[in-house]
């Protein structure tokens, strides 16, 4: 039996004539932080909704060993998610939210939530609609982090937040929540923001999976070379995945070439995930 937290094969979803997901195969192992990266409308949210049992799909998908659409409430006993900062019920008071989740989720630890929540800033009697976006995010994160879950799914969780809150959000996630027994899947189109915390990446575009890899393997598989002007033609002959200009010099991205082989053309480095994403998406669009 597979130990994977999420497995999908041929995962597809149509909205009328639009193919939101188009035959995706993937496997996510425990203890990983996976970035689901794609443009707006690439299919990220649809993929996450399918994983969380919020939408029907074609193909096969198992989350924590069960079909999430057929048995959503079973999945949600061991998984939790933050869709975005706007979904907490605005009419609820903070104290009511804590009480409600405590009564509704067997894995919720009220004491932990209270410890995580700065009640001096966010009062238990405050209505959620009176809180700022940043406070709502802090509240939602405190509630989620107090749930003993094997899988946490975050869909653009810091959308609309300022830099300070975004940093606090990911710091808290990494320092106070993540351990090797948990898996986190984060969807975003702002790759730079999360690339330092990821262990794996999934690139998605037009409903198709362009890349599925660990961040470690990316460094072995892809290299970027700042090609010296007089070596451009030779370097291009090796078939770079993508080319771009940087301060008047060509940066070429290669797949499956060794560092010594490429070092002859100029300075080599592991590409940033954002650059790799742009290269793959542009390549996919060609």
């Amino acid at each position, binding site marked *: 039996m597979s130990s994977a937290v999420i497995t999908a094969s041929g995962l597809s979803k149509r909205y009328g004539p639009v193919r939101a997901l188009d035959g995706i195969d993937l496997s996510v192992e425990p203890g990983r932080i996976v970035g689901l990266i794609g443009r707006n409308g690439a299919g990220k949210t649809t993929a996450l*909704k399918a994983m969380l049992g919020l939408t029907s799909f074609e193909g096969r998908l198992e989350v924590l060993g069960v079909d999430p659409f057929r048995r*959503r409430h*079973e999945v949600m*006993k061991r998984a939790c998610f*933050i869709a975005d900062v706007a*979904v907490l*019920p*605005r009419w609820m008071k903070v104290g009511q939210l804590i009480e409600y*989740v405590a*009564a509704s989720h067997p894995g919720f630890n009220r004491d932990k939530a209270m410890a995580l929540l700065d009640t001096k800033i966010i009062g238990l009697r405050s209505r959620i609609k009176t809180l700022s976006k940043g406070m709502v995010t802090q509240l939602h994160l405190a509630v989620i982090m107090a749930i003993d879950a094997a899988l946490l799914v975050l869909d653009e969780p810091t959308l609309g937040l300022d830099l300070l809150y975004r940093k606090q959000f990911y710091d808290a996630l990494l320092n106070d929540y993540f351990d090797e027994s948990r898996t986190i899947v984060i969807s975003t189109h702002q790759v730079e923001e999360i690339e330092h915390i990821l262990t794996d990446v999934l690139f998605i575009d037009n409903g198709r999976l362009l890349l599925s890899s660990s961040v470690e393997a990316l460094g072995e598989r892809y290299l970027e070379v700042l090609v010296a002007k007089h070596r451009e033609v030779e370097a291009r002959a090796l078939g770079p995945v993508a080319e771009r200009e940087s301060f008047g010099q060509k940066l070429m991205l290669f797949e499956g070439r060794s560092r010594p082989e490429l070092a002859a053309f100029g300075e080599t480095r592991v590409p940033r995930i954002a650059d790799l994403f742009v290269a793959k998406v542009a390549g996919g669009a060609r």
Partner: protein
Amino acid sequence: MKAFLAQLRRELWEHPVLYLSPIVIGAIVLVWALWLATSPDGLELAFVIEDDDIGFADRTRLVTTIVLVLLAPLFMLPTVAVIASYLLNCLGTERRDRSILFFKSLPISDVTTVLAKLTTALLLAPILALAGLLITELGVTVVVGASSAGMLWDPSQLLAAWALAAYTVIAFMLWHAPTWCFLLAVSAWARRATLLWACSPLLVILVERSLTGRSSLGRLLSAHWQGFWSTALEHRLSIPLGQNPFPEMLGEVDVASTTNLWSWMDPVGLLTSPTLWAGLAVAVGFTAAAVALRRYRDDS
């Protein structure tokens, strides 16, 4: 069970009108009763005492019955309006403000959620209204009774009036379950113009009438609505319209029969009515539709 109770509590948090309306109505009625009891022009029960046709005890019992019975609709009519409004919106607001994504992030099934909403409407709200009615009836009989020589203080009649109200509410909720569950399904279905969708049967009736001159749906619904009173209740009291109906009425009614509120109820007639069971089957269908819509609809 703990999770189900949490859903009921959530409904009361989200819709405080469910418990506030009986409190407000009760307060208004009690203030009114207090005014009647203290104002020299307010309470005019003397006409009963002056009537020689009926004995004092019967007259007292009759007036007590009328007051207690008439208090029930004061509570129940607004409660019915509150319940209808609640059902029409309970599955729509969570979609509109996207909080459905939060609620679905918890291990609560769609069946549990929908049944909790139905339980809130058909059980919790009526229980709260009945509790309000009971307390108010007690208050009214004490307040008015204290000011008119024990006129309304009749514990056995109070108990009977409350039992009649409880029975009528339960019967009403069961009989009209198709309507309630239709509103619930509309709430799960309609993206906007919920009220218009709720009125869609009326539109069907209008179209039917304009095309064929009569409407089978209209006749069906009309017969169902009127059927409740003849099936669930025995008619004991009819109040003629007029400024002061009591004297004319007293001479005509069978006091013993009218004041025996237990005899108003006809639970056997209700439970053996095929219409009731057919309606409940339709209600189950609408509820299943609401569950399926909440589960399969993907517009979050």
